[in-house]
């Protein structure tokens, strides 16, 4: 049915490695506990698209020329799936970055119409190409060829990646980004693309698979530092935060300690608390009844507002919520302030 050549073995090796990696990431993502953030469900779509890409990339090696002998239609279908899965992955990656930065569907919906238009165009063009070959095609020897329009096709879909990078860079300037790094995703993609240009082997698929695996590792790290019940950070994060403050990465200015009632359903309180706290803060669960919020940046007048809000929430939920707070003095070092305020050494 098909001959085996060295170059085919090479491409099969590489695509197989990429496919195995994506299958593993997919299984792990399906079975892991969630942080409750909206970005988690979109992340699964990124992985599925990357998985389909690697499997299609592996399958097409056996049917496309010059080694493979078709059938022609199957090669076209597989290549179409491969190209479209790249487009889909980049689209969902953009959504994932948006939701990682702003955990809000409203923010996304406002921009959705704008970003859907190129995606719809790319979908139509991909389907049309199956019958016309206006973007890419197979010649009589089933060798893959690209037309001049492929460049523009690539530009449109990679614009999603460029927008994602821009959004990330903008967000990072204004707020800290704890568990996400665009470079950790971009470097494997650039690496794979460069390898493919230089060697003409399936480097991009593997680079892309590694990039998605890196995303998985980043989000898994976040899950590892998140308490499942409350959705806030856990005690491991507190230890890491202390090290980061020692290294000068963060400078806390206000710490609030909460003592919550035992045996009550606190989910309502947690949701309300998220609504009143500023963006630049971390809330950490010490144990079932003790939580702490660490706030960075300017806190002028903030504690007065928060005190009123916490009182209102406690009354509305009919809960006995005790809290105390500490504001950093100028002469205090961040580490000393943090350790005294939180009560950890």
């Amino acid at each position, binding site marked *: 049915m098909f001959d085996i050549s060295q170059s085919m073995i*090479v491409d099969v090796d590489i695509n197989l*490695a990429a496919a195995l990696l994506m299958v*593993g990431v997919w299984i792990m993502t399906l079975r892991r506990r969630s942080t409750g953030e909206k970005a988690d469900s979109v992340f699964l779509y990124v992985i599925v698209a990357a998985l389909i890409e690697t499997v299609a990339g592996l399958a097409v090696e056996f049917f496309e020329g010059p080694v493979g002998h078709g059938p022609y239609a199957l090669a076209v279908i597989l290549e179409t799936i491969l190209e479209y899965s790249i487009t889909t992955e980049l689209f969902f990656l953009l959504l994932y970055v948006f939701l990682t930065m702003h955990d809000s569907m409203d923010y996304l919906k406002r921009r959705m119409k704008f970003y859907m238009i190129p995606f719809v165009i790319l979908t139509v063009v991909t389907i049309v190409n199956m019958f016309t070959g206006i973007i890419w095609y197979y010649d009589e020897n089933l060798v893959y060829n690209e037309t001049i329009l492929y460049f523009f096709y690539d530009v449109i879909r990679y614009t999603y990646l460029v927008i994602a990078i821009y959004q990330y860079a903008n967000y990072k300037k204004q707020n800290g980004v704890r568990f996400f790094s665009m470079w950790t995703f971009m*470097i*494997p993609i650039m690496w794979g693309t460069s390898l493919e240009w230089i060697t003409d082997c399936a480097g991009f698929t593997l680079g892309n698979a590694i990039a998605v695996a890196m995303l998985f*590792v980043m989000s898994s*790290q976040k899950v590892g530092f998140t308490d499942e019940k409350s959705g806030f950070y856990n005690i491991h994060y507190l230890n890491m935060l202390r090290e980061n403050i020692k290294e000068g990465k963060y400078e806390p200015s206000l710490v609030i300690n909460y003592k919550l009632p035992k045996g009550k359903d606190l989910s309502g309180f947690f949701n309300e608390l998220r609504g009143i706290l500023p963006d630049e803060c971390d809330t950490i669960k010490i144990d079932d009844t003790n939580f702490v919020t660490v706030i960075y940046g300017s806190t002028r007048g903030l504690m007065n507002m928060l005190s009123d809000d916490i009182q209102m929430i406690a009354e509305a939920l009919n809960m006995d919520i005790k809290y105390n707070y500490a504001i950093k003095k100028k002469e205090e070092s961040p580490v000393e302030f943090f350790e005294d305020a939180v009560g950890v050494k």
Partner: protein
Amino acid sequence: MFYIVDRDYATLILDSSTILMILGIIRMSFRHREKNRPDLDSFVLLLVINIIMALGDTLGYLCEYKVFPHSRGLATLGMTIFYTGFVVITMAWLHYCRVRFRGDKLSDRTHFAYEYIPGMIMTVLVLINVFTGWIFSYNEKAEYFRGVLFIPMYILLACYIAAGFMCVAKYRDNNSGRALIPIWVYAIPILIGGTFTFFVPGSASFAPFGIAMSFVFTHMGTINEVS
């Protein structure tokens, strides 16, 4: 003069991608690092050894089955580094599992005397293999041959890897943490990588890539199980 053939690209791409992936994970591990976590230190050590394996593997594959000055010597050097790393990483894996899942401390040396002796002996045998040829050898044309101790070495490596996974399985049995993924699933990449390397001599080595995948998945997967 050194030259590259088609089959070398798979090695170059796979091994360089493995190293890139591991460097990315090490960077992320250091970015979000807690102090006094010997299990995380052990995990990073595993990854570093994996990089050394990948480098040795690259050197070995690029030089074997080729005739140029010192090709035989370089191939031998590369595969010696690879197999030394392979033996050491399996011992390091067992150590990581014990520290992470059994709470062993480095100061507790009672188990060092026994379980790791075969591994240490095998490490010495790999290092002196250049004189003995008991594990592998190359002829004048840099053609690769397996020695009499090749299969026993693989059996030993499999024992260490299995012992590590048994540690994880026992940890799950003893704890109320949710077992989200069967433990054998984590072993699949390493099994595929090892099987490829064992049954297809001269093919692109999946071993460093498969090992990296197994270890990273086990580490990340079990993080998610602990609340």
